[in-house]
């Protein structure tokens, strides 16, 4: 049950254990406060998402080039964020942020499919600006919401219903 290398050391009391857990809570809250993305992050991500949506509607090599450019740029954006804030956080922190991330991906996938549909329907190409604009808006708004959920899950990994 125990991996204590010094079994002679006195065990922590209940109060000491509570104090240690309180210190962890305080640190988690402080860390969560550092995880606020800069204004340009989601906007840039949104523009890249719009680029991918527009790329779906463009013919031939032009569309493929645009999508490849977007794919190449995303790691650079993430790298820029990590280099500046020196915290790497690429996964959801809990069930709510996981659901939020899935929602964002589903919305973007839907918008990309709509870009393909516009091409197949042979509608004027400027129609693609509609899903592209929605892509920017969705990425910025849902991305900021994702950040907020992520921060709250890091600051409080166990919301009140599971606490006694």
């Amino acid at each position, binding site marked *: *049950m*125990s*991996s*204590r*290398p*010094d079994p002679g*050391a006195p*065990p*922590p*009391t*209940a109060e000491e*254990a*509570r104090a*240690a*857990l*309180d*210190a*962890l*809570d305080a*640190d*988690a809250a*402080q*860390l*969560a406060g*550092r995880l606020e993305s800069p204004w340009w992050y989601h906007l840039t991500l949104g523009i890249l998402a719009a680029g991918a949506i527009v790329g779906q509607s463009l013919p031939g090599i032009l569309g493929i080039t645009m999508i490849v450019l977007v794919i190449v740029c995303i790691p650079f954006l993430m790298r820029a964020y990590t*280099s*500046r*804030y*020196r*915290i*790497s*956080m*690429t*996964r*959801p*922190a*809990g*069930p709510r942020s*996981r659901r939020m991330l899935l929602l964002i991906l589903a919305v973007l996938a839907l918008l990309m499919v709509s870009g393909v549909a516009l091409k197949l329907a042979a509608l004027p190409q400027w129609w693609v600006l509609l899903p592209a604009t929605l892509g920017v808006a969705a990425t910025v708004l849902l991305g900021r919401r994702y950040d907020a959920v992520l921060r709250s*899950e*890091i600051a409080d*990994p*166990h919301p*009140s219903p*599971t*606490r*006694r």
Partner: protein
Amino acid sequence: MNDDVSRGHSPARSGGTPEPEFHELIHAPVRLRICGLLRGVDEIEFAVLRDTLQLKDANLSKNLKLLSDAGLVSTCKEFSPVRNDARRLTWVSLTVAGHAAFSAHLAALRAIADGDPALPS
């Protein structure tokens, strides 16, 4: 309502409720807080860890080395793109074993805080 029972535990990352296991190396206050910060992220740069925990470089280095020697933490050095000198950035993360040990230790702390007489053995 007793808020102390489930604090500081992240089943989302550990994949479920671990068996309580007290870990003396982790339990030292500084090392406990280092692991607590690392648990929520992929990696943190040394300076962010130092500033968040308000520690001296030497103190943080010493404790990271102990955790690293125990296989609980890994460090990775890289050249800084924002520095003009040759100093490197040091990225710190919990290993898989570190995640497991820390989750088990938190479970033990919660048990102790909750008055479980069986812990630590």
